[in-house]
């Protein structure tokens, strides 16, 4: 062992970090955590506004409009013009946007042009399919991924470790639809255990229909969560604090729970948040494969028909969900890590 001059290293800790800590201090305020949350919330609102503007522009500038779906293939130009006028689609864009924002302040997402129902209702029904799908697969993936990651990290280099690693690589490299088709073929056709089409009716029936989509999504997510947990837990196991705990004769459960899981928590939570967000995209594909009437399908059909209120509503709701997820992630991290509560930089 050589002498390490941590002393000097810390002395120079880098003007960067000290500057930032100092700047944070200058801004005053009692709790750095509260300040961080405030900044994040302002950022979140900015994100939401940006999303509404971008989506609004894209949808309105895109070729084709809802009047074509509404009037069908045999419509006359007069008919089309009349419909455009009825829905104010010929008004200047800024007027339309302001109208949209105005309605938003009343939590009114408008009425679907092609479903003839309030967008909130369409979204609510779709969310009834999507929310369990997303949340359950996400939770399963997070829990199972951490467990698998820990299991393999503890036996790093073993055959099992390599097999799991290879499987995660394979799962991560396989497009979602391929995984979905394979599972549907095995469990739906060869074994005939589970339905493969649609979301079923309510309650228990729906649970049965959601098993395969959830399994598919979980498998894909599991790949990244396992790999991540494997690496992070591997790092922690190499840290002095683990050796020190083991040298004190502390039990395995203490080491794994109080040290490994706790220290991995911030990164795991942050990653889970990111995964949840990324998942919202992949969901479209899963829903197509299993013909689920969820948010992804809602969005795709709305795009096809240029059902503007629905497109805007779904993207907004997803953006809000993302913002909420990020907020929850921040709060959880604050709860777990006292360093973050003190406003110190923590590598996430």
């Amino acid at each position, binding site marked *: 062992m050589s002498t390490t001059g941590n002393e000097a290293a810390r002395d120079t800790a880098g003007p960067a970090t000290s500057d930032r800590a100092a700047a944070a201090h200058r801004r005053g305020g009692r709790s750095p955590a509260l300040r961080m949350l405030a900044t994040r919330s302002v950022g979140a609102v900015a994100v939401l506004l940006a999303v509404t503007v971008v989506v609004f522009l894209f949808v309105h500038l895109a070729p084709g409009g809802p009047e074509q779906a509404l009037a069908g293939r045999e419509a006359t130009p007069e008919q089309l013009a009349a419909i455009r006028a009825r829905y104010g689609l010929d008004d200047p864009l800024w007027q339309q946007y302001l109208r949209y924002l105005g309605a938003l302040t009343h939590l009114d997402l408008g009425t679907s042009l092609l479903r003839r129902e309030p967008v909130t209702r369409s979204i609510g029904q779709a969310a009834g399919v999507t929310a369990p799908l997303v949340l359950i697969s996400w939770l399963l993936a997070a829990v199972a991924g951490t467990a698998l990651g820990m299991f393999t990290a503890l036996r790093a280099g073993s055959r099992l470790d390599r097999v799991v690693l290879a499987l995660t690589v394979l799962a991560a490299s396989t497009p979602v639809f391929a995984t979905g088709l394979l599972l549907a073929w095995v469990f739906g056709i060869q074994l005939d255990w589970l339905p493969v089409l649609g979301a079923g009716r309510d309650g228990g029936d729906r649970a049965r229909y959601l098993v395969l989509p959830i399994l598919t999504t979980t498998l894909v997510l599991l790949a990244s969560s396992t790999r991540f947990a494997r690496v992070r837990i591997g790092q922690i196991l190499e840290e002095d604090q683990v050796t020190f705990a083991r040298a004190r004769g502390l039990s395995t459960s203490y080491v794994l729970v109080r040290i490994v899981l706790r220290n991995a928590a911030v990164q795991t939570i942050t990653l889970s948040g990111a995964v949840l967000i990324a998942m919202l*995209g992949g969901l479209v594909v899963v829903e197509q494969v299993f013909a689920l009437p969820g948010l992804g399908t809602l969005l795709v059909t709305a795009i096809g028909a240029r059902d503007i209120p629905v497109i805007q509503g779904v993207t907004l709701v997803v953006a809000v969900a993302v913002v909420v997820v990020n907020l929850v992630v921040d709060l959880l991290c604050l709860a777990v890590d006292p360093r973050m509560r003190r406003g110190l930089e923590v590598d996430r």
Partner: protein
Amino acid sequence: MSPAGIVLARRPRARRFLAGPGVPPGVAAAALFLGLVAVWVVAPGLAPHDPALIRPGDAYQGPSSAHLLGTDPLGRDVLSRLIDGARTAVLAPLTLAAGTIAVSTTLAVLAGYLRGWVDAVISRVVDVLYSIPALMVAIVIVGVTGGGFGLSIIVLLVFGLPANVRVLRAAVMERAALPYVEAARTLGVSTPRIMLTQLVPAIGPLVITSFFLQITFAIVDLSSLSFLGLGVPPGASDWGRMMAENRATMSANFFSTAAPGLCLAAVAVSANVLGDWLYTRYEQAGRSR
């Protein structure tokens, strides 16, 4: 060794420790496969038939000596299309990944080294992008505008940035405080030169591994777009497209869907494996004391 001879060892699995160089079989296989694909990319002439030749009479054939992997619904030779398709199947994700990583690295180095307002702007933009589900936005934008392949690439590139910029920026910040960078500053080396000759090589392993990972993501994302009917134009002998187009008739010629699918997965896995391996090698080379 010891007179007492009582072995305290509990774990004979010592192979990994101090393991010397040597190429694991998985990596060799990955390299071999990527090599084969590379050959297909540079020499599409290897295809036994004209990949675009439509022969309605030969449609839906299973594998035969004339058509090793059978034919597709238009009677085109699947193997030839597979070989011809290597170009888009590999080059598109490659371009996408290279572009993503190049832009990410540039932004990360600028933000992580210059700090200040440059960092603030880049980081905020990255934060915003990070909180938008990429594939969903790609579907909206590409779907609504009917933008096609080029647009999909751009959209996926932009949304591939945040994760990479974050990781690389953190790495740059870590390295920027290291003595060798400060030594270069003290010597008077110019800022662009420090970025190019010190920081970029220093985060090299990370750049490489991000690049290979990004290839995997690119393959998966592009094929998902193809699956939804977005992306490359119909008729192109792109693997993702072939899968999507021939899927409907999978029962007629299984290989017309499975072969491009397997190739796609194999490229993704190979890229992944190779990236991991290179990273470890590069890291070890720089770290061994």
